[in-house]
């Protein structure tokens, strides 16, 4: 890993008195999948537009692939593929013609255009509808066509804004697989989403946005450990014993919170089910049920901002 692909320092964007993004620091290394997560209106899209040079920051600096998006926008845009939120195509043109237009705009040599378009369409499995008008495409097909555009342009970096929004579960799954393929091709991927749980599986690192700032940044497991006290959640249902007191001393156990009806939630940084079972049984309790799951990013997010709100 040489120099970072994307580097932002003190990035700020104000719309009048409102700061959409304030004092953002961000580094994305080559070859990683970076998730920009947060609720609507938290500054994700503004940040992405600033990375692309489509919106001018009020202050701060950005380097993308070693170029400044505001002085050398063409150099940056040549290396970065962008898939906007709710992407649109020219309805009266076919999928192939739509891609041919952007191919001409991005200066792909005429001799290569046709083969690159077909290869890209094949990868996103749209080759059998290449000559159908884009107007008849479903939302999922449009998103895939947008991915095909990124593929065709052979960019080093792909920035995907809300790639899964408005898709049904199957289309979402297909899209996530496609993103996985992009990554295997060696592309650096930045994707934004408000559906935290969905993208945690494919992101190497995530940044949680909150009101124009990055609240948390790092690997999902690290964040879970930091905020929740563990990357795993064990649900324990037991009787005849004081569960929180029994488990609090165990190694690897974070905090224990009571849920309803004698059930407790235990945050742990590894699989601690054997230890829990052993200590409950040895304390004379009856263990009724136990289930383990990975901490989800949604919980991290909610918990983190609860903490922020409490601290304030």
């Amino acid at each position: 890993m040489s120099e970072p692909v994307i580097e932002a320092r003190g990035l700020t964007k104000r719309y009048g008195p409102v700061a959409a993004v304030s004092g953002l620091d961000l580094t994305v290394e080559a070859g990683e999948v970076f998730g920009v997560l947060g609720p609507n209106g938290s500054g994700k899209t503004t940040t992405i537009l600033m990375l692309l040079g489509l919106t001018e920051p009020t202050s701060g600096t950005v380097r993308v692939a070693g170029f400044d998006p505001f002085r050398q926008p063409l150099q940056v845009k040549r290396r970065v593929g962008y898939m906007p939120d709710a992407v649109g195509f020219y309805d009266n043109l076919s999928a192939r013609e739509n891609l041919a237009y952007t191919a001409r705009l991005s200066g792909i040599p005429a001799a290569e255009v046709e083969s690159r378009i077909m290869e890209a369409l094949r990868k996103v499995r749209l080759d059998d509808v290449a000559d159908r008008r884009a107007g008849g495409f479903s939302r999922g097909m449009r998103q895939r066509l947008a991915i095909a555009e990124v593929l065709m342009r052979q960019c080093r970096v792909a920035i995907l804004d809300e790639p899964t929004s408005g898709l049904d579960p199957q289309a979402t799954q297909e899209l996530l697989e496609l993103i996985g393929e992009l990554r295997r091709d060696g592309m650096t991927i930045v994707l934004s989403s408000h559906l935290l749980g969905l993208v945690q599986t494919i992101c190497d690192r995530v940044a949680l946005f909150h009101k124009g700032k990055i609240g948390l940044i790092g690997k999902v497991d690290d964040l879970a450990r930091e905020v929740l006290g563990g990357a795993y959640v064990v649900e324990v249902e037991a009787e005849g014993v004081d569960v929180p007191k029994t488990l609090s001393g165990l190694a690897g156990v974070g905090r224990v919170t009571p849920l309803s009806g004698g059930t407790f939630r235990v945050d742990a940084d590894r699989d601690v089910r054997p230890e829990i079972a052993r200590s409950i049984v040895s304390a004379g309790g009856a263990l009724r049920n136990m289930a383990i799951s990975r901490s989800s990013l949604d919980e991290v997010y909610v918990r983190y901002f609860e903490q922020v709100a409490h601290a304030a």
Partner: protein
Amino acid sequence: MQREGSPFTGVSAVALKEAADHMTSARMHLVMLLVLLTAVGAIYGAIGQIKATVGEDQFLFLRLLTTAKDPLPSFVAFLGFLLPLVSIALGFDAINGEYSRRTMSRILAQPIYRDALLLGKFLGGLIVLAICLVTLWLLMTGMGILLLGLPPSGEEILRGVAYLICSLAYAGVWLAIALLFSTVFRSPATSAMAALAVWLLFAIFWGMLAPLVAGVIAPIDQLDPMTAVHQLELQKSISRLSPNTLYGEMTLALLNPETRTLGLVFMSQLQGALMGAPLPFSQSALLIWPQLAGLVAAMTVVFTIAYVAFQRQEVRA
């Protein structure tokens, strides 16, 4: 802050794509059908009128374009009225259409500047207008040759081509206006209505407004005849703010070669003039030079305003 890279990267790609889109769009076909039908009607009427009049005319072919037969107006009058409509049809949703189709941010994320998109759209529209005008002119010439049995003279062709260039400048002004409204208004319907309102203002009401305004600004003093001249000149200046007036004057000078002036002339200035004798083409061209320059300037100014508005726009819809 200096930016690197040419702002013209991608202009030709955008222009050709826009031109191709227009040539295949149903909207354009309808408008051109309207223009074609009225043009054929006007020429047909003119031919009937010309055949009925006995007499020698050096510029019979030009009469084809300028002769009106009641109730039909002449071909040039039709074109002066309808060309703005064609331009507006081409341009009213140029920019806001990209937003409503949600293609704007995707296109601007390609390695081109915004300049290329706006300029490309403008040039694409101009290409289509030029093609339409040339086609129309060739059709009319062909119809004239067939029905009159006369080929046009060299001078008539020269004047015809000059007329085409002026028509393109005129249509260009309206294309720039439509483009401006499509940049300023986010809804294509609003921008179409605004452009049509301006069109109606200039095509119909401006001619009525100019004398009124001139009368208010420069009332005539019964004792001073120069005030009447002053008022008339002011009225002329006001009416020349309208591209339609400028276009009308250019058509007059080009297609009626005996036109000697487009403004007020005193008797003393006409001394030695052979009334009714045609001017050579070079003199007629000289006569319309200010009008043509004015139209091109208007086109540039309106386009520049649209350009500035577009550059300042936020990309996110």
